[in-house]
């Protein structure tokens, strides 16, 4: 019997060796280990053995069963692994084919840069104020220290509204929002106001009868001109990086005193002078200044107690500088091939 058992084991292992399909493995399991299998058949003869032989052969038979089972499961694992490897290989795809996308639009470049500026100012505690685009002469000019007959009105190229004796107009500057805010809010005031402004400039690569400004206004006790410089420097460093330099140049606006224009070191040459900045090293960026005491008084704020600063920057110029856009008209033509680039 012992020989029989050893023979079965040898045969089973031999057959296993040549097996290549998982199904064949099942057949082999039945053939050797099944109820009607060869090993079972031999074990059925155990009763014929002597009492001494029975445990010895029993042990051997268990050993043979265990060996075959282990060989079976090892083989099964190998075959499964092979099969999976085969499957994975057959499932290989061209990963360079394009992805399946959901439709996705974009914000206009003017909005993108405006959002960025809004966020920077909100981080500095500025609220966002709105004001009417069609406004009256008082808020756009008179309260801002531009009385009728003021020569600076010439430079504004104002659009007037019919039937209003030139008292209603399209605002030429977001500075009008300063007046609306100061009339209705008590200091401390800290706002920015982005919006559309209108001037009768014919359309060309750098002019448009409609463009956007972002106005800023801070009113409190003890606000200094150095605070204005600090605020604008912070803004520009956040927008253009720590390396950018600002230059403050004296200028004149009727609603601020002192007034300045602020230039930024040229994006192209960094300040050494090139064709983009006309050899200046700087590019004009915005107008600013300390709120004129008359403006404060016009809005009912005591100029001996409060002071403040204001600034207004042109959004289009910043967008064009930011994305190297050389023609302002592109922003209002809205060609999708332009819009999808931002």
């Amino acid at each position, binding site marked *: 019997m012992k020989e029989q058992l050893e023979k079965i084991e040898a045969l089973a292992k031999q057959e296993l060796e040549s097996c290549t399909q998982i199904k064949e493995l099942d057949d082999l399991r039945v053939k050797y280990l099944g109820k009607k299998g060869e090993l079972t058949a031999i074990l059925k003869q155990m009763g014929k053995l002597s009492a001494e032989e029975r445990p010895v052969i029993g042990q051997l038979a268990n050993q043979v069963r265990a060996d075959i089972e282990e060989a079976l499961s090892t083989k099964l694992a190998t075959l499964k692994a092979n099969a999976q490897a085969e499957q994975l290989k057959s499932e290989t795809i061209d990963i360079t084919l394009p992805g399946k996308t959901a439709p996705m639009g974009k914000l206009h470049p003017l909005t993108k840069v405006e959002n960025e500026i809004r966020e920077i100012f909100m981080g500095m505690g500025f609220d966002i104020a709105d004001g009417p685009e069609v406004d009256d002469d008082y808020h756009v000019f008179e309260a801002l220290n531009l009385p009728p007959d003021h020569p600076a009105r010439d430079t504004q190229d104002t659009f*007037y509204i019919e039937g209003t004796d030139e008292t209603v107009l399209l605002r030429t500057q977001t500075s009008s929002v300063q007046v609306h805010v100061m009339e209705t809010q008590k200091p401390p005031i800290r706002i920015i106001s982005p919006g559309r402004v209108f001037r009768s400039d014919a359309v060309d690569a750098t002019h448009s009868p409609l463009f956007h400004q972002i106005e800023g206004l801070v009113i409190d006790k003890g606000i200094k001109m150095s605070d204005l410089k600090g605020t604008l420097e912070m803004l520009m460093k956040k927008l253009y990086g720590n390396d950018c330099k600002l230059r403050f140049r*004296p200028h004149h606006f009727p609603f601020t005193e002192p007034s300045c224009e602020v230039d930024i070191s040229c994006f192209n040459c960094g300040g050494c002078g090139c064709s983009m900045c006309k050899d200046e090293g700087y590019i004009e960026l915005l107008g600013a200044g300390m709120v004129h005491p008359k403006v404060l008084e016009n809005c009912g704020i005591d100029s001996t107690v409060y002071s403040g600063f204001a600034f207004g920057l042109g959004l289009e110029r910043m967008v064009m500088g930011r994305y190297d856009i050389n023609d302002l008209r592109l922003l209002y033509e809205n060609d999708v091939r332009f819009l999808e680039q931002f």
Partner: protein
Amino acid sequence: MNLSMKWLGDYVKADMPIKDYCHALTMSGSKVEGYEVEGEKISKVVIGKILSKVPHENADALFVCQVEVGAEAPIQIVTNAKNVKEGDIVPVALDGATLPEGKIKKGKLRGVESFGMFCGLDTLGLTINDFPYADPDGVLVIEEECEIGQDIHHALGLNDTSVEFEITSNRPDCLSVIGLARETAATYNLPLTVKEPEFKGIDGDINEMLKVDIHNTEKCQRYCAGIVKNVKIGPSPRWMRERLRASGVRPINNFVDITNYVMLEYGQPMHAFDLRYVEGGHINVRNAVNGEKIMTLDGVERELTEDMLVIADEKKPVAVAGVMGGEYSGIMEDTTTVVFESAYFEPSQVRRTSKNLKLKSDASSRYEKGVDRLISMTCLKRAFELVEELGAGEVIKTVIDCDYTDKTPASVDFDSAWINEFLGTDIPEADMIDYLNRLGFEVKDGKAIAPSFRIDIECRADIAEEVARIYGYNNIPSTDFRGVAKAEFTEEQKFVRTLRNTSASLGGYEIATYSFVSPKYFDKIKLSEDSKLRKVVKIVNPLGEDTSVMRTTTIPSMLDVLSFNYNNRNEKACLFEISKEYIPVDEKRNYEGDEAILVNSGKLRHEYKYQLPDEPQRLTIGMYGGNSDFYTLKGMVEQIFAEINISDVEYIRANDCDIFDEKSALHPGRSAVIIKDGKYLGIMGEIHPEVQENYKLGVKTYVAKLNIPEMLELSCDEISYKPLPKFPASTRDLSVIVDDEVPVAEIEKAIRGAVGKILEKVTLFDVYKGKQIEDGKKSVSYSISMRSHEGTLTDEQADGAMKKALKALAAIGAELRM
């Protein structure tokens, strides 16, 4: 303002490199736009003397000249110039010379060698005004003294530098050489040398020849006049022409040039006119009479009104004060006696007159900005000094001076501590006083006293600016200001941000369009003649009709952009814009309401006569191509409503609703108005074929306009969690056949009503027309999901609910499809 650096040199020693000068002046407040070195583009051009001129052997039109140019031997030049002859002094461009038009090289002309070229005015970049005696079409034959071989720059005075300043409206004093000299001296801390002009004059009593009366001493505060006899009209000397040229002014004749010269030098407009035409020798500065007429120098007859000021003789106006002289008042060839006027007119008076007459001049633009009210006499004297220097006539020693000016200088508080606090600086008081003194201010007894030419000084902040600009804006430190501030978006701002981001994430590209449109758009979108949208806010002075009215609907702007893209061959576009409409408001403006909100001013400062328009915000969506249809647009709109938590909106046929007049632009069978709780949220649909054609759109196009204020009112940003279901749902599918006209919304409504509380979701999955379905009918299929939160639904419960649904459907004519 173009400044001649040579002229500036009369008053201040400004010999620093020109680039440094421009930068320094810019940084102290006089912005330099650029500078031009005269004759910069000219080199190797010298003075030559023609020794001989003979005809060219091979060409009739050419001549061969031997020319002395200061070199060892004369050079040979071939020329076609007819206006030169032996002995003439001419500019010669030598071999290798540079001219504005290019380089000159020696060469052969018809076989004869030529070593240079004679130059005319054109070739040197000059005009007849620079050398009135020159032949404008020929070679410049020089009549002044110069040396043979001398460089042309020195010989012709082409060696000035002209600096272009941008002068702001508050500093008219800087529109003059002396004004800029003062700024230069203050910037560099250099001495300024301006001497009071003097003239000798001849004996005579002006009062016997001329009488001046000012009838309106408020508008004309000073009038100085003097007389020059035996005038000799002729060209001005070269130095004067050169300076005028560098300042951008065309030389004309000695008298005109003198008035311009003094105006450029001091900023004071001068007027010179012929005494013959002053009837009665009596000048009256008075208001015009309504309807009074004058022919101004530009040849236009102008009708005057009584608020205008004129210079008149005993019978008629001879000039519009400060604006322009009359036709006959100018200097003519036979003029023998000239009156010089130097006056001060009130700025807003000149400004209004100039504006009303639509007439501008150098003089008016200076007067309206404000000239120094104390220099009229100085300038008259300067003019006479020049008349004598030029030998242009005999000046009568006595002059007329009607002076009603207020000589009190502007004086404001000077408080160095306050200035430092205001600027955030630490400038010593002595330095501040030094800066102010350099600028012509006097500081004493805590006051800064402004010089008379500074018409812009009114408050202590003005003094702070003067100190700051000389100290240097860039020397002021940068600080962070203190104080707690809370910043947050308003509800509306948050809402708009959500709309914008949602629209983009749904595939929309944001656009930006003009707020003003052409009134033609109303016809383009087929608005009815009596549509309220045709009532617009209209611009009086638009750039053109295309931008002449403020839009009352955003849809045409969107269609324009869609059309632009379509015609640029972009095969599809999905666009959106958040922008305003401008709706005129009829009612009178509510003064009391305005007053109530002016918390700071407390009182109404301005009489509002006209109501401002409403400016409601709209979200406009437009699309074409990419298989888009009505439902693509509707899907986008639905998803937007989902994002802002507005549920259960109703879509009704646009034709059944009179709220949106833009329905005229839409296909009547494919357009909807969106309503919820009686609020009209928007209109959407396919563009009407005619409108599609009007916009040259070759494909079906879809637009929606959503009203942001109404949506904001309904939107809800409160979200509360509902527990996830514990029990399974039962699902039943249902197909019904119904008349084609019945909208699915009605079927869905019937199902919802019948199934009741256990209804979880009704999903439409098929609408079918065609085979097996009777004509005029359609088959509609739903998947209905039901669920209870109390336990698993039994089949009986679910089937019962379906029976009720079928009954309700039968009531609207829908039958179960077998």
